[in-house]
C-alpha cells in the first residue's frame, strides 16, 4: 500500500517536473555554482523524454520480436540445432559494449538515432531470449501431454498453451531489457541521438551538477515506473494461473 502511494507520488512528481521544469528550479539551485542555470533549457525536457522513451520502445519491440521469434524457433524440433548459434548471437549482443557498437555503427549509419537503436536492440536481446527459452522449455509435463492428447496441432499448442504459459517469464525478460535500455540510451546522445543523455552530457561538459542530477533523476524515475508496471502485469498473469510465488 505504501509502495503504491510512493509510486503514485513519483509519477506525479515526474509529470509535474516535465510539464513545468522551471517551477522546480529551487530544487536544483543548490547544485549550481557561479550563477549557472539550474534547469536545462537548450531543448525542452519533455521532448527529450518523449524521444528517449520512443527510442527505447522501438528498440525493445524489435528485440522482443527477434528474441521471442528465436526462442520459438530453437524450441521447435526443426530448429533445435540453431540453439547454440542463437545463444551465441544473443550473448555477444549483451557482452559487446554499447559504446563500441555506437563507434562501429556511426561510420556506417551516420549520426542520429540509428546507431543508438542498433546498440539498444543488440543489448536487449539476451534477457528476452533466455526467458522465452526457459518459459517454453519448463512447461508442466502433464499440461503438454494433455494438449497433445486432446488433438491440438503443433501450432495450436504453441499459440494456445505454450506461449500463454510462458508469458509471465517473457514479460520479465522484456522488463529487464526495457530497464537496461532506458539507462543505456543516455549514451546515444554522444552520437547526436535525442535522449536525456543530452542533459547529463551538457552538465558534465559545463560542470553543472544540476543538469546531471535532473537528467539522471528523470531516467531513474522512468526506469522505476516501467519496472513496476511490468511487474504488476506479470504477477497478474501468474495469479490467474495460480503460480504466484513460484
Amino acid at each position: 500500500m505504501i509502495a503504491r502511494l510512493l509510486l503514485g507520488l513519483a509519477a506525479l512528481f515526474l509529470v509535474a517536473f516535465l510539464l513545468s521544469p522551471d517551477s522546480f528550479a529551487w530544487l536544483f539551485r543548490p547544485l549550481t555554482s557561479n550563477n549557472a542555470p539550474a534547469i536545462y533549457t537548450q531543448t525542452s525536457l519533455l521532448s527529450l523524454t518523449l524521444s528517449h522513451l520512443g527510442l527505447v520502445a522501438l528498440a525493445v519491440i524489435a528485440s522482443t520480436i527477434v528474441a521471442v521469434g528465436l526462442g520459438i524457433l530453437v524450441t521447435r524440433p526443426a530448429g533445435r540445432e540453431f540453439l547454440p548459434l542463437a545463444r551465441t548471437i544473443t550473448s555477444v549482443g549483451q557482452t559487446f559494449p554499447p559504446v563500441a557498437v555506437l563507434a562501429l555503427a556511426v561510420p556506417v549509419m551516420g549520426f542520429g538515432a540509428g546507431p543508438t537503436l542498433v546498440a539498444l536492440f543488440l543489448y536487449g536481446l539476451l534477457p528476452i531470449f533466455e526467458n522465452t527459452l526457459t518459459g517454453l522449455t519448463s512447461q508442466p509435463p502433464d499440461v503438454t501431454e494433455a494438449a497433445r492428447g486432446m488433438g491440438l496441432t503443433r501450432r495450436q499448442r504453441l499459440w494456445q498453451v505454450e506461449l500463454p504459459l510462458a508469458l509471465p517469464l517473457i514479460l520479465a525478460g522484456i522488463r529487464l531489457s526495457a530497464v537496461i535500455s532506458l539507462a543505456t540510451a543516455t549514451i546515444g546522445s554522444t552520437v547526436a541521438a535525442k535522449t536525456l543523455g543530452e542533459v547529463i552530457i551538457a552538465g558534465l561538459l559545463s560542470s553543472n551538477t544540476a543538469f546531471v542530477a535532473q537528467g539522471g533523476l528523470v531516467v531513474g524515475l522512468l526506469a522505476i515506473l516501467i519496472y513496476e508496471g511490468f511487474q504488476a502485469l506479470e504477477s497478474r498473469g501468474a495469479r490467474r494461473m495460480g503460480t504466484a510465488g513460484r
Partner: protein
Amino acid sequence: MIEIRNLTKRYDETTVVDDVSLTVETGQIAALVGTSGSGKTTLLRMINRLVEPTSGTVLIDGTDTATIAPHILRRRIGYAIQGHGLFPHRTVGQNIATVPTLLKWPEAEIRARVDELLELFQLDPAQFRDRMPHELSGGQQQRVGVARALAARPELLLMDEPFGALDPVIRAKAQEDLRALQRQLGTTLVIVTHDMEEAVALGDRIAVMDKGRLLQYGPPDEILTAPATPFVQALIGEGERPFRLLSLSTVADLVQPGEAPGPAIPPEASLRDALAECLWSGRELLPVEGGGIVTLARLRECATGAGAATT
C-alpha cells in the same frame, strides 16, 4: 471395438511393448495393470498415437488408426491423465470446451455441453464454469479432467492412472462414479492402473502386463481364480484374493429364500461387505432387504472361487 494386433514398440535396443494383441469390445472397460515399466502406459499411448508403434496395428471399429492424421484421431478419442493436465491459464469452462472448440462446434452448443458435463460431474455450472483450475480441490480438478475428455462425446476414452493423485476416500467414490457414468454413456474405456484393486473394481477385462509382454487377458474372476503366471499371482496378492473375488459380486447374485433375524443388508452391497457384516455381528445368516437371505456358508464358497456364477 478396439483391436490391438501384434503391437510392438522398441526404443533402440529396449523393447517396451512386445507383440501385444488384445480386443476391447464396444462399451466395455479394459484395465491394463502392471508394475511401472511394464509398458502399460506406452501401450495406451499407442492407441491415440502419442507414441508411434514400431510394428503392429490398432483398429478402431475396423479402421486402421495409422490411416488417420494423429491430431484428428486424438480429437475423436477422450484422454484423461494422472494429475489431470488442466490448462492453468484457462477457466474450467474453457478447459472442458477444448475439443469441441477444436472441432468448431457452434458456440451455443459448446456452452450447453459444458454446463451439461459440469452438472453430470456434480459441479454447479454457475459456480464453477468461470473458475480457474487452481481454485478447485484435487477431486474437482480430476472430475473436470474427465469431463474435458468426454466433452466431444468420444466413443473411446483412454485414462492413464486418472485417480493416482487422489486420496483413498475420494478415489473409491471417483471409481464408482466413473463406472456408473461409463454404463450410462456406453463409452468404451481403456484404463491404465498399477493397482489391482482398481482394476478389479472397474475392469470388465483385465490385461496384466510385465516387461512389455501381455501375460494374461481375461475377466476379473478368471484372473483371480486362474492366474496364468506366478507374476500375475503375486500382483493379485494372495492374502487379498478371496476378498477381491467377493467384491466382484453383489448380495443380489447370492440371495436365497429364507428368513433371518437382525438388521438387513441391501441387495446391491458387495459380497465382501456381506462377509464383513457376518464376521462383525457374529451371524451365520443375513436377511436381505426386500426378502431372502445370504448365508456365511455360501459366502465362503464364493471366496474360494466357486463363484456366484454357479447360482
